[in-house]
């Protein structure tokens, strides 16, 4: 129990430090938490509206919701893939569970996401049709996506530390996922025979669910969410095994 409290405090202080250092990196500081998704949305809207013909506030909000959901997922996992290598000197000096460090990076990125999400949510609710009962799904969606991010990072943080080549592979996979996850288009644009593949991608399910709840006041597809929940459980089991196996062995296998 003491250790759980101690780990909670470590995550708190390091997340605080992470946020402070991100804010001090640029002149605009914390404002970038909101500017970054807005900027990426602007770029995508500019490029895509000419191709798809979808214009106006609805098209922008559709991309914006997709973009913040995506950036939360991609940013957290990419950041946590390097959590252990960048803090290797700490592991050489104190016995701490390795999973703490990816959790800190996820924490920092989640605070970033939360700022953008709250702003986007309020704008969407004003411009769309106000609060609906479907909003009650938001905590479920947020917790499930956070859990999936943690599940992936448990596996990826150790894997990338042992095999740095995986980082390049991950960048390519994320680039592919960026184009196929429905960030700048919706499921209606996907040919019917490709829909099962489209929905096999858990990020797509999150993006669609958030859009449905926030923009259309529509409850998400429960069976698709259950599919994401099963993936999350599998990730936690596999990730937990990997973390416990490598926790005290990692330092003997690599000295990154």
């Amino acid at each position: 129990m003491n250790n759980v409290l101690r780990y909670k405090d470590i995550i708190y202080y390091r997340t605080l430090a992470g946020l402070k250092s991100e804010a001090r990196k640029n002149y605009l500081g914390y404002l970038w938490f909101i500017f970054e998704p807005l900027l990426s949305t602007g770029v995508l809207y500019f490029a895509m509206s000419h191709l798809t013909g979808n214009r106006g506030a609805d098209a922008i909000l559709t991309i914006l919701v997709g973009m913040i959901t995506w950036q939360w997922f991609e940013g957290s996992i990419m950041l946590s893939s390097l959590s252990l290598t960048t803090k290797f000197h700490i592991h050489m000096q104190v016995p701490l569970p390795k999973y703490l460090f990816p959790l800190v990076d996820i924490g920092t990125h989640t605070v970033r996401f939360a700022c953008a999400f709250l702003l986007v949510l309020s704008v969407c609710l004003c411009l769309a049709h106000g609060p609906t009962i479907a909003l009650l799904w938001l905590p479920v969606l947020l917790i499930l996506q956070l859990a999936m991010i943690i599940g992936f990072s448990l596996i990826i943080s150790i894997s990338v530390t042992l095999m740095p080549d995986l980082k390049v592979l991950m960048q390519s996979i994320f680039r592919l996922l960026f184009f196929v996850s429905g960030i700048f288009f919706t499921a209606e644009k996907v040919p019917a025979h490709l829909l099962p593949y489209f929905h096999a991608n858990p990020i797509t399910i999150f993006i669609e669910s958030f859009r449905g709840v926030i923009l259309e006041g529509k409850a998400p597809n429960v069976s698709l969410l259950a599919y994401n929940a099963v993936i999350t459980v599998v990730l936690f089991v596999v990730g937990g095994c990997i973390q416990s196996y490598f926790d005290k062995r990692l330092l003997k296998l690599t000295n990154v």
Partner: protein
Amino acid sequence: MSDPLIRLENTGVYYRGGWTLGARPPETPWALRGLNLEIQKGEKLGIVGRNGCGKSTLLRLLAGIITPDEGSIRYSQSGLHVQLLALGVGFEGNLTGAENAILSGLFMGKSRRHMESRLREIQEFSELADAFYHPVNTYSSGMNARLGFSIALQTDPDVFLIDEILGVGDHGFLNKSREAIQKKFKSDTTVILISHEAKTISSICSRAVWMNKGNILAQGDPVDVCKTYESQGSPSRR
């Protein structure tokens, strides 16, 4: 004699230097092999040996940072707090000295409450005055070392592992930090000190161990062990 606080039995550790599947590759050297060592409560154990003899691996093993590849390591009680004296572990430049004191203490196994109750002592010992509440990235390297040392001093582990660090800072602080370490040697805390300097070990330790190639060559009275080490093992005599 009572049960030892820590007992190592036939312990072996090796570093693979990369992730390979399967058994230990034959060319991989053992950092420690067939090591048997007992550490009694309250004793001051000194470890001498040349570079690469396995001293640091032994400290990491004792601190629970790594596990043995063969043999075992047993602690007399679960939750025994064994800590490496490390300066400025995980310091974050953007946090203040006080925040870093708490964070660093948390890393070293202490609770937030414990560290908060020691903030005043840390501030006083480190002689940082108001700078204690400024971000650490505004500190000089001397201030950093003073803060790191003062934090480590307030963590009160059951077993203190010290790797050559016997004092830091300028002349005044060096004496003060040396005195603080000497005090640890006079208290009930179990201390394990690693040093190249046989003289230091023989003057402040109650028992000494001479390590070579991952194993123990001699152990016992520090003066005798250090004499043997200096006559046979010390690079200066070769």
